[in-house]
Protein backbone atom coordinates (compact mmCIF):
# COMPACT_ATOMS: atom_id res chain seq x y z
CA UNK A 1 0.00 0.00 0.00
CA UNK A 2 1.42 3.42 -0.93
CA UNK A 3 1.85 5.37 2.29
CA UNK A 4 -0.13 8.59 2.65
CA UNK A 5 2.75 10.22 4.49
CA UNK A 6 6.38 9.40 3.88
CA UNK A 7 8.93 11.22 6.04
CA UNK A 8 12.67 10.75 6.05
CA UNK A 9 15.35 12.18 8.30
CA UNK A 10 13.35 15.08 9.74
CA UNK A 11 15.44 17.23 12.07
CA UNK A 12 14.74 20.56 13.69
CA UNK A 13 16.49 22.67 16.28
CA UNK A 14 15.00 25.49 18.31
CA UNK A 15 17.99 27.49 19.43
CA UNK A 16 20.14 25.06 21.38
CA UNK A 17 17.39 22.45 21.71
CA UNK A 18 17.23 19.52 19.32
CA UNK A 19 13.47 19.16 18.96
CA UNK A 20 13.57 16.50 16.22
CA UNK A 21 16.52 14.31 15.34
CA UNK A 22 16.47 12.22 12.18
CA UNK A 23 12.83 11.16 12.40
CA UNK A 24 11.57 8.87 9.66
CA UNK A 25 8.16 7.28 9.40
CA UNK A 26 5.47 6.17 7.00
CA UNK A 27 1.77 6.53 7.65
CA UNK A 28 -1.10 4.81 5.89
CA UNK A 29 -4.86 4.74 6.26
CA UNK A 30 -6.03 4.38 9.84
CA UNK A 31 -5.18 5.98 13.15
CA UNK A 32 -1.53 6.11 14.22
CA UNK A 33 -0.81 7.13 17.78
CA UNK A 34 2.16 9.32 18.64
CA UNK A 35 3.19 8.80 22.25
CA UNK A 36 5.90 10.51 24.19
CA UNK A 37 6.64 12.48 27.35
CA UNK A 38 6.55 16.28 27.54
CA UNK A 39 9.30 17.77 25.43
CA UNK A 40 9.62 14.64 23.30
CA UNK A 41 9.04 16.56 20.08
CA UNK A 42 5.49 15.34 19.37
CA UNK A 43 4.04 18.79 18.76
CA UNK A 44 7.08 19.77 16.72
CA UNK A 45 6.72 16.70 14.53
CA UNK A 46 3.03 17.38 14.03
CA UNK A 47 3.70 21.01 13.18
CA UNK A 48 6.32 19.98 10.64
CA UNK A 49 3.99 17.43 9.01
CA UNK A 50 1.17 20.00 9.05
CA UNK A 51 3.54 22.40 7.24
CA UNK A 52 3.32 24.97 10.02
CA UNK A 53 7.12 25.04 10.40
CA UNK A 54 9.79 23.77 8.05
CA UNK A 55 12.26 21.14 9.18
CA UNK A 56 15.96 22.06 9.14
CA UNK A 57 16.83 18.80 7.42
CA UNK A 58 14.99 15.88 5.90
CA UNK A 59 11.99 15.68 3.65
CA UNK A 60 8.46 14.38 3.60
CA UNK A 61 5.54 14.07 1.27
CA UNK A 62 1.82 13.79 1.87
CA UNK A 63 -0.13 12.06 -0.92
CA UNK A 64 2.92 12.66 -3.07
CA UNK A 65 2.90 16.44 -2.47
CA UNK A 66 6.23 17.95 -1.45
CA UNK A 67 5.83 20.96 0.89
CA UNK A 68 9.24 22.23 -0.17
CA UNK A 69 7.62 24.17 -2.99
CA UNK A 70 4.85 26.72 -2.69
CA UNK A 71 2.56 24.76 -5.02
CA UNK A 72 3.31 21.47 -3.31
CA UNK A 73 2.63 23.04 0.09
CA UNK A 74 -0.68 24.42 -1.11
CA UNK A 75 -1.77 21.05 -2.56
CA UNK A 76 -0.72 19.30 0.62
CA UNK A 77 -2.73 21.74 2.73
CA UNK A 78 -5.81 21.13 0.60
CA UNK A 79 -5.68 17.52 1.82
CA UNK A 80 -4.86 18.39 5.41
CA UNK A 81 -6.93 18.82 8.55
CA UNK A 82 -5.09 20.12 11.60
CA UNK A 83 -6.18 20.36 15.22
CA UNK A 84 -3.43 22.19 17.14
CA UNK A 85 -2.59 21.52 20.75
CA UNK A 86 -4.38 24.63 21.96
CA UNK A 87 -6.89 25.60 19.30
CA UNK A 88 -7.76 29.28 19.46
CA UNK A 89 -11.16 30.77 18.79
CA UNK A 90 -12.27 34.29 18.06
CA UNK A 91 -14.11 35.29 21.24
CA UNK A 92 -17.35 36.42 19.60
CA UNK A 93 -17.78 33.64 17.08
CA UNK A 94 -20.48 31.03 17.23
CA UNK A 95 -19.57 27.43 16.42
CA UNK A 96 -20.96 27.90 12.91
CA UNK A 97 -19.11 31.19 12.35
CA UNK A 98 -15.79 29.75 13.46
CA UNK A 99 -16.00 26.68 11.22
CA UNK A 100 -17.22 28.93 8.40
CA UNK A 101 -14.15 31.13 8.93
CA UNK A 102 -11.82 28.13 8.73
CA UNK A 103 -13.68 26.92 5.64
CA UNK A 104 -12.90 30.25 3.98
CA UNK A 105 -9.24 29.85 4.87
CA UNK A 106 -9.51 26.46 3.18
CA UNK A 107 -10.65 28.27 0.03
CA UNK A 108 -14.34 27.35 0.17
CA UNK A 109 -15.51 30.57 -1.41
CA UNK A 110 -18.98 29.59 -2.65
CA UNK A 111 -21.26 30.63 0.18
CA UNK A 112 -24.03 28.04 -0.24
CA UNK A 113 -21.65 25.11 -0.71
CA UNK A 114 -19.48 26.32 2.15
CA UNK A 115 -22.42 26.54 4.54
CA UNK A 116 -23.55 23.04 3.56
CA UNK A 117 -20.04 21.78 4.33
CA UNK A 118 -19.98 23.62 7.65
CA UNK A 119 -23.26 22.08 8.68
CA UNK A 120 -22.06 18.65 7.57
CA UNK A 121 -18.93 18.73 9.70
CA UNK A 122 -20.73 20.21 12.70
CA UNK A 123 -23.32 17.43 12.47
CA UNK A 124 -20.53 14.87 12.12
CA UNK A 125 -18.95 16.25 15.29
CA UNK A 126 -22.27 15.98 17.13
CA UNK A 127 -22.71 19.75 17.34
CA UNK A 128 -25.82 20.12 15.19
CA UNK A 129 -27.84 21.51 18.10
CA UNK A 130 -25.31 24.15 19.15
CA UNK A 131 -24.33 25.60 15.79
CA UNK A 132 -25.55 29.04 16.74
CA UNK A 133 -24.11 29.09 20.25
CA UNK A 134 -21.14 31.31 21.04
CA UNK A 135 -17.99 29.25 21.51
CA UNK A 136 -17.19 30.93 24.82
CA UNK A 137 -20.43 29.43 26.17
CA UNK A 138 -19.51 25.89 25.16
CA UNK A 139 -17.86 23.37 27.45
CA UNK A 140 -14.23 22.38 26.93
CA UNK A 141 -15.24 19.13 25.29
CA UNK A 142 -17.58 20.88 22.87
CA UNK A 143 -14.89 23.41 21.98
CA UNK A 144 -12.55 20.58 21.10
CA UNK A 145 -15.29 19.15 18.90
CA UNK A 146 -15.70 22.52 17.19
CA UNK A 147 -11.98 22.52 16.49
CA UNK A 148 -12.21 18.96 15.15
CA UNK A 149 -15.13 19.95 12.95
CA UNK A 150 -13.01 22.76 11.53
CA UNK A 151 -10.23 20.29 10.83
CA UNK A 152 -12.68 18.03 8.97
CA UNK A 153 -13.80 20.76 6.56
CA UNK A 154 -13.07 19.67 3.02
CA UNK A 155 -12.93 15.97 3.99
CA UNK A 156 -9.12 15.93 4.21
CA UNK A 157 -7.23 12.71 3.55
CA UNK A 158 -4.67 13.44 6.27
CA UNK A 159 -5.73 14.50 9.74
CA UNK A 160 -3.24 15.72 12.35
CA UNK A 161 -4.57 15.89 15.90
CA UNK A 162 -2.37 17.27 18.66
CA UNK A 163 -3.49 15.96 22.07
CA UNK A 164 -7.19 16.43 21.36
CA UNK A 165 -8.36 14.69 24.55
CA UNK A 166 -6.25 16.62 27.06
CA UNK A 167 -8.32 18.28 29.75
CA UNK A 168 -11.46 16.33 28.88
CA UNK A 169 -13.35 14.37 31.48
CA UNK A 170 -13.74 10.60 30.92
CA UNK A 171 -17.14 10.89 29.27
CA UNK A 172 -15.98 13.66 26.95
CA UNK A 173 -12.88 11.64 26.16
CA UNK A 174 -14.99 8.63 25.20
CA UNK A 175 -17.14 10.76 22.90
CA UNK A 176 -14.07 12.26 21.33
CA UNK A 177 -12.62 8.81 20.76
CA UNK A 178 -15.79 7.87 18.89
CA UNK A 179 -15.30 10.88 16.63
CA UNK A 180 -11.65 10.09 16.03
CA UNK A 181 -12.44 6.46 15.28
CA UNK A 182 -15.03 7.52 12.70
CA UNK A 183 -12.66 10.12 11.29
CA UNK A 184 -10.03 7.42 10.84
CA UNK A 185 -12.22 5.34 8.55
CA UNK A 186 -10.75 5.75 5.09
CA UNK A 187 -8.45 8.53 6.24
CA UNK A 188 -4.91 8.77 7.62
CA UNK A 189 -4.93 10.14 11.15
CA UNK A 190 -1.88 11.00 13.24
CA UNK A 191 -2.94 11.36 16.85
CA UNK A 192 -0.56 12.77 19.42
CA UNK A 193 -1.48 11.89 22.96
CA UNK A 194 -0.19 11.35 26.48
CA UNK A 195 -2.93 8.85 27.12
CA UNK A 196 -1.96 5.26 26.41
CA UNK A 197 -5.66 4.40 26.67
CA UNK A 198 -6.31 6.54 23.57
CA UNK A 199 -3.72 4.53 21.69
CA UNK A 200 -4.93 1.20 22.99
CA UNK A 201 -8.52 1.94 21.99
CA UNK A 202 -8.02 3.74 18.69
CA UNK A 203 -4.73 3.01 17.00
CA UNK A 204 -3.62 0.24 14.71
CA UNK A 205 -0.08 1.57 14.97
CA UNK A 206 1.94 3.54 17.52
CA UNK A 207 5.12 5.60 17.34
CA UNK A 208 6.95 6.46 20.55
CA UNK A 209 8.99 9.63 20.45
CA UNK A 210 11.46 10.76 23.12
CA UNK A 211 14.08 13.50 23.01
CA UNK A 212 13.28 14.07 19.36
CA UNK A 213 13.98 10.53 18.20
CA UNK A 214 11.78 7.57 17.35
CA UNK A 215 12.09 4.90 20.06
CA UNK A 216 9.42 2.55 18.74
CA UNK A 217 7.34 2.17 15.60
CA UNK A 218 4.95 -0.77 15.42
CA UNK A 219 1.60 -2.07 16.56
CA UNK A 220 0.18 -1.57 20.05
CA UNK A 221 0.45 -5.35 20.56
CA UNK A 222 4.17 -5.22 19.77
CA UNK A 223 4.68 -2.33 22.18
CA UNK A 224 2.80 -4.22 24.88
CA UNK A 225 4.88 -7.33 24.15
CA UNK A 226 8.02 -5.40 25.13
CA UNK A 227 6.78 -5.67 28.69
CA UNK A 228 6.08 -9.41 28.52
CA UNK A 229 7.45 -11.12 31.63
CA UNK A 230 8.63 -7.77 32.93
CA UNK A 231 5.67 -6.77 35.05
CA UNK A 232 5.14 -8.28 38.47
CA UNK A 233 3.26 -7.79 41.69
CA UNK A 234 4.79 -7.48 45.17
CA UNK A 235 3.66 -6.73 48.66
CA UNK A 236 6.24 -3.99 49.13
CA UNK A 237 7.84 -1.50 46.79
CA UNK A 238 10.60 -3.31 44.81
CA UNK A 239 13.71 -1.11 44.73
CA UNK A 240 14.95 -2.94 41.65
CA UNK A 241 11.95 -1.93 39.54
CA UNK A 242 12.28 0.81 36.94
CA UNK A 243 8.76 1.95 37.83
CA UNK A 244 6.48 0.90 40.62
CA UNK A 245 3.30 2.09 42.26
CA UNK A 246 0.76 0.98 44.81
CA UNK A 247 -2.43 -0.25 43.22
CA UNK A 248 -5.94 0.12 44.57
CA UNK A 249 -5.66 -3.44 45.91
CA UNK A 250 -2.81 -2.44 48.18
CA UNK A 251 -0.14 -4.40 46.34
CA UNK A 252 2.64 -2.88 44.24
CA UNK A 253 2.78 -3.13 40.48
CA UNK A 254 6.38 -3.14 39.26
CA UNK A 255 7.81 -2.74 35.80
CA UNK A 256 11.39 -3.66 34.98
CA UNK A 257 13.56 -6.74 35.48
CA UNK A 258 11.67 -9.06 37.86
CA UNK A 259 13.46 -11.07 40.51
CA UNK A 260 13.38 -14.84 40.29
CA UNK A 261 10.04 -16.27 41.30
CA UNK A 262 8.22 -12.97 40.95
CA UNK A 263 4.46 -13.02 40.59
CA UNK A 264 4.23 -11.97 36.95
CA UNK A 265 1.34 -9.88 35.66
CA UNK A 266 -0.20 -9.41 32.23
CA UNK A 267 1.48 -6.35 30.71
CA UNK A 268 -0.40 -3.37 29.38
CA UNK A 269 0.45 -0.93 26.64
CA UNK A 270 1.49 1.55 29.30
CA UNK A 271 4.04 -0.91 30.68
CA UNK A 272 5.58 -1.38 27.24
CA UNK A 273 5.62 2.39 26.78
CA UNK A 274 7.38 2.95 30.12
CA UNK A 275 10.04 0.38 29.30
CA UNK A 276 10.58 1.91 25.88
CA UNK A 277 11.14 5.29 27.49
CA UNK A 278 13.50 3.78 30.04
CA UNK A 279 16.52 5.03 28.15
CA UNK A 280 15.08 8.58 28.24
CA UNK A 281 15.45 8.96 32.05
CA UNK A 282 11.77 8.91 32.84
CA UNK A 283 11.76 6.73 35.98
CA UNK A 284 8.33 6.74 37.58
CA UNK A 285 7.69 5.93 41.22
CA UNK A 286 4.61 6.44 43.37
Amino acid sequence: MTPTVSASGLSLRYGGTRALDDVSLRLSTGVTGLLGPNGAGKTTLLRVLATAVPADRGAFTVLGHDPGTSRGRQELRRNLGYLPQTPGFHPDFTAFEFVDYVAILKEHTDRAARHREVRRVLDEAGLGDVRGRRIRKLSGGMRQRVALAAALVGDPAFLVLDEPTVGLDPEQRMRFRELIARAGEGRTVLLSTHQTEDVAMLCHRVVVLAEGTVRFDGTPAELTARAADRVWSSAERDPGAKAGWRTGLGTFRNVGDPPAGADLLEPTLEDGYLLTLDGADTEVTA
Partner: protein
Amino acid sequence: MTNGTTGWHVPEADLRAYARAELEPPLLWSADTHLTACAHCRAVLAEAAGPAALDAGWDRLDAELDAPRPGLLESLLLRCGVADHTARLLAATPALRRSWLGAVTAVLLLTAAVTVAHGATGTPTLFLALAPLLPLAGVALSYGPALDPTYEMAVVAPMHGFRLLMIRTVVVLAAGLGLNGLATLALPGYGLRALAWLLPALALTASALALTARLGPVRAPSLVGGGWIALLLSADAARAGDDPLAPFTAAGQGVSAAVALLAAGLLVRLRDRFDLSRGDTA
Protein backbone atom coordinates in the same frame (compact mmCIF):
# COMPACT_ATOMS: atom_id res chain seq x y z
CA MET B 1 -49.56 37.28 0.35
CA THR B 2 -51.08 37.29 3.80
CA ASN B 3 -49.54 37.33 7.28
CA GLY B 4 -50.26 34.52 9.75
CA THR B 5 -50.69 36.83 12.70
CA THR B 6 -53.28 39.12 11.05
CA GLY B 7 -55.04 36.65 8.70
CA TRP B 8 -52.45 36.83 5.93
CA HIS B 9 -51.13 33.62 4.40
CA VAL B 10 -48.78 32.70 1.58
CA PRO B 11 -50.81 31.79 -1.54
CA GLU B 12 -50.81 28.08 -2.23
CA ALA B 13 -49.21 28.59 -5.66
CA ASP B 14 -46.29 30.34 -3.99
CA LEU B 15 -46.02 27.56 -1.43
CA ARG B 16 -45.82 24.97 -4.22
CA ALA B 17 -43.12 27.02 -5.90
CA TYR B 18 -41.37 27.29 -2.54
CA ALA B 19 -41.49 23.50 -2.15
CA ARG B 20 -39.89 23.11 -5.59
CA ALA B 21 -37.19 25.69 -4.63
CA GLU B 22 -38.46 27.86 -7.48
CA LEU B 23 -39.67 30.85 -5.48
CA GLU B 24 -37.48 33.90 -6.12
CA PRO B 25 -36.55 36.81 -3.84
CA PRO B 26 -38.14 38.94 -2.45
CA LEU B 27 -41.16 36.56 -2.30
CA LEU B 28 -38.77 33.87 -1.10
CA TRP B 29 -37.58 35.97 1.84
CA SER B 30 -41.15 36.84 2.77
CA ALA B 31 -42.14 33.17 2.65
CA ASP B 32 -39.11 32.19 4.77
CA THR B 33 -40.04 34.69 7.46
CA HIS B 34 -43.77 33.90 7.35
CA LEU B 35 -43.32 30.12 7.58
CA THR B 36 -41.36 30.35 10.80
CA ALA B 37 -44.40 31.98 12.43
CA CYS B 38 -47.38 30.38 10.68
CA ALA B 39 -48.36 26.78 11.48
CA HIS B 40 -51.19 26.92 8.95
CA CYS B 41 -48.86 27.66 6.04
CA ARG B 42 -46.41 25.05 7.22
CA ALA B 43 -49.22 22.49 7.13
CA VAL B 44 -50.20 23.57 3.61
CA LEU B 45 -46.55 23.37 2.58
CA ALA B 46 -46.29 19.85 4.00
CA GLU B 47 -49.26 18.75 1.87
CA ALA B 48 -47.98 20.52 -1.23
CA ALA B 49 -44.49 19.12 -1.01
CA GLY B 50 -43.32 15.55 -0.93
CA PRO B 51 -41.29 14.52 2.14
CA ALA B 52 -37.97 14.87 0.34
CA ALA B 53 -38.78 18.32 -1.00
CA LEU B 54 -40.07 19.39 2.39
CA ASP B 55 -36.92 18.21 4.12
CA ALA B 56 -34.85 20.04 1.52
CA GLY B 57 -36.86 23.16 2.18
CA TRP B 58 -36.36 22.97 5.93
CA ASP B 59 -32.67 22.30 5.35
CA ARG B 60 -32.45 25.42 3.25
CA LEU B 61 -34.29 27.43 5.87
CA ASP B 62 -32.04 26.02 8.58
CA ALA B 63 -29.05 26.97 6.49
CA GLU B 64 -30.26 30.54 6.19
CA LEU B 65 -30.91 30.74 9.92
CA ASP B 66 -27.46 29.31 10.66
CA ALA B 67 -25.69 31.64 8.28
CA PRO B 68 -23.64 34.19 10.19
CA ARG B 69 -25.25 37.61 10.43
CA PRO B 70 -22.77 40.21 9.21
CA GLY B 71 -21.72 42.79 11.76
CA LEU B 72 -21.28 46.50 11.11
CA LEU B 73 -17.86 46.25 9.50
CA GLU B 74 -18.77 43.21 7.43
CA SER B 75 -21.98 44.84 6.20
CA LEU B 76 -20.03 47.94 5.23
CA LEU B 77 -17.52 45.86 3.30
CA LEU B 78 -20.30 43.93 1.54
CA ARG B 79 -21.94 47.21 0.51
CA CYS B 80 -18.59 48.31 -0.94
CA GLY B 81 -18.65 45.25 -3.18
CA VAL B 82 -16.18 43.11 -1.21
CA ALA B 83 -16.84 39.39 -1.70
CA ASP B 84 -18.63 37.81 1.24
CA HIS B 85 -15.81 35.37 2.02
CA THR B 86 -13.25 38.20 2.06
CA ALA B 87 -15.51 40.31 4.28
CA ARG B 88 -15.85 37.38 6.66
CA LEU B 89 -12.04 37.05 6.90
CA LEU B 90 -11.67 40.73 7.61
CA ALA B 91 -14.37 40.68 10.27
CA ALA B 92 -12.07 38.44 12.32
CA THR B 93 -9.09 40.81 12.09
CA PRO B 94 -8.09 41.85 15.61
CA ALA B 95 -7.20 45.42 14.66
CA LEU B 96 -10.63 45.99 13.14
CA ARG B 97 -12.44 45.38 16.40
CA ARG B 98 -14.27 48.26 17.98
CA SER B 99 -12.05 48.17 21.06
CA TRP B 100 -8.89 48.76 19.06
CA LEU B 101 -10.40 51.36 16.74
CA GLY B 102 -11.87 53.12 19.74
CA ALA B 103 -8.50 53.24 21.45
CA VAL B 104 -6.83 54.63 18.34
CA THR B 105 -9.53 57.27 18.00
CA ALA B 106 -9.09 58.29 21.62
CA VAL B 107 -5.32 58.63 21.26
CA LEU B 108 -5.67 60.68 18.09
CA LEU B 109 -8.27 62.99 19.63
CA LEU B 110 -6.11 63.53 22.69
CA THR B 111 -3.05 64.25 20.60
CA ALA B 112 -4.94 66.61 18.32
CA ALA B 113 -6.40 68.39 21.36
CA VAL B 114 -2.94 68.89 22.90
CA THR B 115 -1.61 70.14 19.56
CA VAL B 116 -4.47 72.60 19.11
CA ALA B 117 -4.00 73.83 22.67
CA HIS B 118 -0.41 74.76 21.83
CA GLY B 119 -1.56 76.98 18.97
CA ALA B 120 -1.05 76.60 15.20
CA THR B 121 2.60 77.61 14.89
CA GLY B 122 5.40 75.72 13.13
CA THR B 123 4.56 72.07 12.69
CA PRO B 124 2.31 69.87 14.85
CA THR B 125 5.29 67.78 15.93
CA LEU B 126 3.61 65.64 18.60
CA PHE B 127 0.78 64.70 16.26
CA LEU B 128 3.13 64.01 13.33
CA ALA B 129 5.38 61.88 15.56
CA LEU B 130 2.54 59.76 16.91
CA ALA B 131 0.28 59.41 13.88
CA PRO B 132 2.54 57.06 11.85
CA LEU B 133 2.86 54.68 14.81
CA LEU B 134 -0.85 53.96 15.02
CA PRO B 135 -1.33 52.33 11.59
CA LEU B 136 1.96 50.49 12.20
CA ALA B 137 0.60 49.08 15.44
CA GLY B 138 -2.71 48.19 13.80
CA VAL B 139 -1.07 46.25 10.99
CA ALA B 140 1.34 44.58 13.41
CA LEU B 141 -1.60 43.40 15.50
CA SER B 142 -3.33 41.94 12.46
CA TYR B 143 -0.73 39.30 11.90
CA GLY B 144 0.89 36.73 14.06
CA PRO B 145 -0.09 34.72 17.10
CA ALA B 146 -0.13 37.58 19.60
CA LEU B 147 -3.71 38.66 18.96
CA ASP B 148 -4.94 36.22 16.32
CA PRO B 149 -6.10 33.10 18.19
CA THR B 150 -6.56 31.22 14.92
CA TYR B 151 -3.02 31.96 13.70
CA GLU B 152 -1.91 28.33 13.81
CA MET B 153 -4.90 27.20 11.77
CA ALA B 154 -4.44 30.02 9.27
CA VAL B 155 -0.77 29.12 8.72
CA VAL B 156 -1.59 25.56 7.61
CA ALA B 157 -4.59 26.54 5.48
CA PRO B 158 -4.31 26.45 1.68
CA MET B 159 -4.82 30.21 1.45
CA HIS B 160 -1.35 31.68 1.00
CA GLY B 161 -0.25 33.49 4.15
CA PHE B 162 0.85 36.51 2.17
CA ARG B 163 -2.60 36.89 0.63
CA LEU B 164 -4.27 36.84 4.04
CA LEU B 165 -1.71 39.32 5.33
CA MET B 166 -2.27 41.70 2.41
CA ILE B 167 -6.06 41.52 2.65
CA ARG B 168 -5.88 42.45 6.32
CA THR B 169 -3.13 45.03 5.85
CA VAL B 170 -4.97 46.95 3.15
CA VAL B 171 -8.14 47.26 5.20
CA VAL B 172 -6.43 47.92 8.52
CA LEU B 173 -4.16 50.49 6.91
CA ALA B 174 -7.13 52.14 5.23
CA ALA B 175 -8.94 52.31 8.57
CA GLY B 176 -5.85 53.61 10.36
CA LEU B 177 -5.04 56.18 7.73
CA GLY B 178 -8.68 57.19 7.62
CA LEU B 179 -8.77 57.86 11.34
CA ASN B 180 -5.50 59.77 11.09
CA GLY B 181 -6.97 61.77 8.23
CA LEU B 182 -10.04 62.66 10.25
CA ALA B 183 -7.86 63.77 13.15
CA THR B 184 -5.90 65.92 10.73
CA LEU B 185 -9.10 67.83 9.97
CA ALA B 186 -8.98 69.01 13.58
CA LEU B 187 -5.74 70.83 12.75
CA PRO B 188 -6.74 73.20 9.94
CA GLY B 189 -4.37 75.86 11.17
CA TYR B 190 -1.36 73.82 10.02
CA GLY B 191 -2.54 73.37 6.47
CA LEU B 192 -0.80 70.64 4.50
CA ARG B 193 1.95 70.39 7.12
CA ALA B 194 -0.50 68.38 9.21
CA LEU B 195 -0.44 65.63 6.55
CA ALA B 196 3.28 65.03 6.84
CA TRP B 197 2.58 61.80 8.82
CA LEU B 198 1.25 59.98 5.74
CA LEU B 199 4.47 58.98 3.96
CA PRO B 200 6.25 58.05 7.21
CA ALA B 201 3.21 55.91 8.12
CA LEU B 202 3.49 54.02 4.83
CA ALA B 203 7.25 53.69 5.20
CA LEU B 204 7.03 52.37 8.77
CA THR B 205 4.29 49.89 7.91
CA ALA B 206 5.97 48.54 4.78
CA SER B 207 9.32 48.27 6.58
CA ALA B 208 7.81 46.44 9.52
CA LEU B 209 6.06 43.96 7.25
CA ALA B 210 9.22 43.35 5.22
CA LEU B 211 11.26 42.81 8.39
CA THR B 212 8.57 40.53 9.82
CA ALA B 213 9.61 37.91 7.28
CA ARG B 214 13.00 37.77 9.02
CA LEU B 215 12.41 38.91 12.58
CA GLY B 216 8.85 37.84 13.33
CA PRO B 217 5.61 39.72 14.00
CA VAL B 218 6.68 41.16 17.36
CA ARG B 219 10.32 42.12 16.94
CA ALA B 220 9.95 43.69 13.51
CA PRO B 221 7.32 46.34 14.31
CA SER B 222 8.92 46.95 17.71
CA LEU B 223 12.26 47.60 16.02
CA VAL B 224 10.71 49.86 13.40
CA GLY B 225 8.63 51.78 15.96
CA GLY B 226 11.64 52.18 18.21
CA GLY B 227 13.75 53.27 15.25
CA TRP B 228 11.19 55.96 14.37
CA ILE B 229 11.23 57.37 17.89
CA ALA B 230 15.03 57.31 17.96
CA LEU B 231 15.12 59.10 14.61
CA LEU B 232 12.78 61.81 15.86
CA LEU B 233 14.80 62.31 19.05
CA SER B 234 18.04 62.66 17.14
CA ALA B 235 16.38 64.96 14.62
CA ASP B 236 15.12 67.08 17.52
CA ALA B 237 18.62 67.28 18.99
CA ALA B 238 20.07 68.27 15.62
CA ARG B 239 17.58 70.90 14.52
CA ALA B 240 18.05 74.59 14.83
CA GLY B 241 15.40 76.51 16.75
CA ASP B 242 11.81 75.72 15.74
CA ASP B 243 12.61 74.27 12.31
CA PRO B 244 10.50 71.26 11.44
CA LEU B 245 12.07 67.91 12.31
CA ALA B 246 14.00 66.39 9.42
CA PRO B 247 11.45 63.63 8.65
CA PHE B 248 8.77 66.30 8.11
CA THR B 249 10.75 68.43 5.69
CA ALA B 250 10.45 68.00 1.92
CA ALA B 251 13.67 65.97 1.84
CA GLY B 252 12.50 63.86 4.74
CA GLN B 253 9.21 63.16 3.01
CA GLY B 254 11.14 62.09 -0.08
CA VAL B 255 13.17 59.66 2.00
CA SER B 256 9.96 58.26 3.51
CA ALA B 257 8.51 57.73 0.05
CA ALA B 258 11.66 55.95 -1.12
CA VAL B 259 11.75 53.73 1.97
CA ALA B 260 8.08 52.84 1.50
CA LEU B 261 8.67 51.80 -2.11
CA LEU B 262 11.82 49.81 -1.37
CA ALA B 263 10.21 48.04 1.58
CA ALA B 264 7.13 47.20 -0.49
CA GLY B 265 9.35 45.69 -3.17
CA LEU B 266 11.25 43.66 -0.61
CA LEU B 267 8.00 42.50 0.93
CA VAL B 268 6.79 41.13 -2.39
CA ARG B 269 10.09 39.29 -2.88
CA LEU B 270 9.81 37.70 0.55
CA ARG B 271 6.13 36.80 0.25
CA ASP B 272 6.67 33.03 0.46
CA ARG B 273 8.08 33.40 3.97
CA PHE B 274 4.62 34.41 5.17
CA ASP B 275 3.29 31.01 4.16
CA LEU B 276 5.03 29.41 7.13
CA SER B 277 5.04 30.07 10.83
CA ARG B 278 8.35 31.42 11.98
CA GLY B 279 8.18 28.94 14.81
CA ASP B 280 7.77 31.81 17.24
CA THR B 281 4.90 29.93 18.81
CA ALA B 282 6.92 26.72 19.40
